[in-house]
């Protein structure tokens, strides 16, 4: 019988296997790089219905986070301000500025302003803001330098692994309680954060849950 397959097909299997290996590695690498939250979510900066600038309100005007996010110290949910909160000032300040048209319309019609949600914890996980801000974790640890953002974007990946990282080593993020809402606070240097953190962890009996039951109900 003549040879059914030409000679060059002898190398084909190994070439196919090698190709598949390379392709799967590339696919995994691409997936790992591009399709995980660290790439997908970080930098998410959707267009909001109102061009609200945290930089103007917090850094320039010196407003405290809690003026608008009023329930962050008592509730699980850190609320976005109601239209009434905005209008507290904006009935008098910039009262005809076209950038605030959506807010004024909301105030008139009673329809809420539809802010686009940037930081989304999935429905099956439960995060509580009050227990973090009351125990020495600042807004900046999870939300980035919001006080300098003109348009808010997601700075941290907020994956479960990222959360656990801090839960296992809370000293990396603990700060004196009166500095929680001072987003510009920096410890002396890297060494100092650890020192401060460990001291506070000891003093305040910081014991974050590391078990699934802490967040998954």
């Amino acid at each position: 019988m003549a040879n059914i397959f030409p000679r060059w097909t002898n190398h084909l299997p190994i070439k196919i296997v090698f190709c598949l290996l390379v392709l799967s590695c590339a696919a995994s690498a691409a997936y790992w790089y591009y399709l995980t939250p660290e790439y997908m979510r970080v930098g998410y900066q959707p267009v909001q219905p109102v061009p609200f600038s945290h930089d103007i309100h917090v850094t320039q005007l010196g407003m405290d986070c809690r003026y608008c996010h009023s329930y962050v110290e008592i509730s699980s949910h850190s609320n976005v301000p109601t239209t009434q909160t905005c209008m507290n000032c904006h009935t008098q300040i910039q009262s005809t500025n076209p950038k605030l048209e959506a807010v004024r319309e909301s105030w008139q019609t009673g329809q809420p302003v539809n802010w686009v949600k940037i930081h989304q914890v999935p429905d099956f996980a439960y995060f509580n803001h009050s227990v973090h801000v009351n125990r020495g974790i600042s807004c900046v640890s999870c939300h980035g330098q919001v006080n300098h953002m003109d348009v808010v974007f997601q700075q941290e990946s907020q994956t479960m692994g990222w959360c656990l990282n801090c839960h296992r080593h809370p000293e990396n993020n603990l700060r004196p309680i009166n500095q929680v809402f001072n987003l510009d606070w920096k410890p002396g240097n890297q060494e100092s954060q650890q020192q401060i953190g460990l001291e506070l962890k000891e003093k305040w009996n910081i014991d974050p849950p590391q078990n699934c039951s802490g967040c998954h109900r």
Partner: protein
Amino acid sequence: MKTVFRHPPEDLTGKRYWRSLEELADTPEFRSWLQREFPAGAADLELDGVSRRNFLRLMGASMALAGIGLSGCRRPEAYIAPYTKSVEWLVPGKAVLYTTSMPGPKGGVPLIATTFEGRPTKLEGNPLVPSSNGGTDLFAQASVLDLYDPGRARTFIRDGEEAGAQQFDVYLASVAKDLEAGKGAGFAILMEEQVSPTRDRFLRKLKERFPESGLYTYNPLGFEEHDLAVAALFGPDIALRADFEAADIIVSLDSDFLGIEQTVQSVRDFSRRRRVHGLGQDMNRLYAVENRYTITGGMADHRLRCAASQIPAFAVKLAKEVAASTNDRVLNAVVAQLKDGGTPFDEVWIKECAADLVARKGKSLVLLGDRFPAWVHGVVLAMNNALGAFGSTLRVLSVPRVKTSSFRDLVADTKARAIKRLFIFGGNPVYAAPADFEWGELQRAIPEVVRLGYSFDETSSPSKWHVPEAHYLESWGDQRAPDGTYLPIQPMILPLFGGLSQLDLLAKLAGLPADVEAIRETFKTFNQESDFESAWTRFLRQGFAESSSYQAAKVEFNPNALPDLLKTAGPPPGPVSPGAIEIVFPADYKIYDGRYANNGWLQELPDPITKITWDNAISLSKSTAKALQLEDGDLVEIGVNGRKLQAAVMIAPGHADYSLSLPLGYGRWVVGKVGQGIGFNAYALRTSDSPYFATGATVNLVQKNGHRLVQTQNHYSMEGRALVREATVDEFKRNPAFAKTVWMDAEIPPNVSLYSHPPLNAPNQWGMVVDLNTCIGCAACVIACQAENNIPIVGKDQVDRGREMHWIRVDRYFASAGGDKNNPHLEEDPEMVMEPMMCQHCENAPCETVCPVNATVHSEDGLNVMVYNRCIGTRYCSNNCPFKVRRFNFFSYNDRPVMDRIEKGLPGFQGKQQLYLGPLAPWGMDELSKMQKNPNVSVRIRGVMEKCTYCLQRIETAKVSQRVKAGVKGDLSLPTDSVKTACQQACPAEAIIFGDIKDPKSRVSQLRTLPQNYHLLEYLNIQTRTTYLARIRNPNPKMPGAARVGNINVDEHGDQRHSAPRAESEMDGGNA
């Protein structure tokens, strides 16, 4: 590597292309010209400083919104929509609690409602009210679902067409004019029974203004007969309330005071005397005489099966014995006046029972079911008088009420054409009226009927107007608790569909201010303080008015009316036999009188005794079934009182012979999706002279196995495993730790585990104790858990496949000694025990080791934790669970249509639930149903395992609150007994106790040290965190059959138990 995604900046240096010198020069004129050049949408862009950059960004954003571009790979956009006007007291994410109460015919149930963002999601009892311990009945727990019932009435309907609220106002104005003119002639109101001071005040005002109008009340499960007897023997405006805490001996003659006739107080007080935390010295004793097993019968120490039609004769026999022992003149006269029907009873039983009653004179009590004829109540009241019960175990209270006429009077008045205009408030007379009145026809004959109803039902169809009623969670009102405490009804939310409450409508008719003003006015009569406003605020905040319970009446038992009352007794019915069968119409444990037919939770809840879901059935005893040649599931036709009904049959242990019971409340024909086509309508057989039972029924088989009855537990035994352990008080005294040496626990030495123990080093260690001695099996815990944890209903077909989703269930077992030649029917006279079963949170959990993806883990504080998002649905954990408490989501019951069926399509799929369409079924929860869901608990989807979590959300909330409170201080310890699970909070008998077993002060720690505490299946070395307190019964050694009481633990050898052997005469088979 993190890349911050931004649109690239405009390149302003380097090579540029220009079309004109202006562009090159970049003059302002050019810029403005550029702007005007932009196409559609230019209006949006007429903002300062718009540039190509902004335009691109906006266009890019809108493309992103359309799903094109990189955002297509991202999660879909979500929005945060805050309120426009800030709402006072509302903190998103935090619950606000308000007190209120649930109206009921015997009085209100005090409640605390948990509301999230203005919507009530869960109801609890109000422990601040003196007569409550914070428990509720299952109707109160389920009523929150009724608020969000998609089948509730949403519009005003006139003559079958939608009308508006304004049109109804116009109509009401014309009614008011007519009333003024005619002083109310021809006008009548038919109401449900309620104990509401404001309603009474309005009715009095109405009667004052329109003296010719008629006021009628109808309660299908009414206690008019009882009230008649009380009025005759004590006087008007008197009510009797049993004091179960004072009673040592209680005899219940078909009085289901722990079941359908329960109040939170009756269960609480009974449980206080039932609980054995010492040596059982002051444990009470309960005798029950009934025709079918009831919750009360399950708690009884001695139970006698007796046909309902024979219970009056039984009462007379018992009275005879009591009269003989006490030499009470009045009682002797009573007994002499009544004739003996000749029915044979167990004479020894009656004699010893009477002796026990008399021995504890002043601390004993005889109770009779509400719906027996008035003369029997007279006999029982005379008996209580002879036993010195009045003033000690039976309190005589002064209860002023507005006098209303009965339904019988309404029927007579309607027939006499005296009613021109009838307002019906609540109830459902067309469905629930006695069949011989033929009320449906009569109502149609009335010229104008206005029906105020919660849903469009049988009574609404023939009415001119249907006015949507507001739920009690949406209205202002008030109630009095059964002991008289004045309770508010506060609205949690504005009426969702613009409904009116009874008080609203009455206020409009009577011309009085409604809403909160009306309640404030009534509160003035209860207020005893000088500062009204602060008293009013406190009243609403704590949920009751102080010192407002009924006062003891200054009247004595007056036997003079007895002879006349007893004359109303007809000739006694003969004994039941195969030719003379009786049928009894008890209220249903879940649907009550039919009002909850569209409540999915209650339909799916297994009946506490029969464990039937989504159905009712005729219960009968095994002997009766044999005589009539019937089996489970047979379809029969019952004929009684000249009426016929087809219904399914079920053999029920412990049922009296030649007696049938068919619960009321089913077979409704105008009802929402949930209640459609369910069960058999017992009201069709019930006539006005047989409100509770009817004799002379005939039974004919229509179809063998003609109806599929779906039960969650159709086996009655523990299959040889000693799950429920019980003993008598004497055995307990002899061997307090008897429960620890029953069955396998007596033989197997302590085990050593091959697996390493998970580290249990948290400061709190959670555990639970279930007291089988006080658990009555009412299943309030099951509904509470369902409300708290977003547990869906699955529908009858799925329950048939064993897929019901209840995280806690109440297992019901029967126990009987084998029969001997003297007592061949012993197995028909079993005892009943209830055992609530939920995840035991085993320290060495068999489920944790077999999960391939580690979706179920153990937490450091002792909980077996279930992580829903990790679960892939292998179901190995459920396979390994020895208690079968893990529930699997076979379909997304919360998000897919459970009640809808496939109309047409693939053969073999027609008629099945739409769930079987899988991904092709419509997705999404009804907007109204979403509102009930607890936001603190995940809503699970298909393919995921779930189970009791020891209310992890409550534990975490407590831990978080403590940490927030601690702030920078280190004290993270939770206050003792501060966390209550939903089941614990709902239980009126306080049978479930949860807490920190590491804290020696907590109640659960103390209960775990009791000698009768035991683990289930301890020999498996799973080390359950939930333990049980064994059942202890208190039999009277002189009673026949006393040796058989406390019998349930038969081990695999067939002997009684391994503990201290009992004397020969006490072994089973002995007939004392």
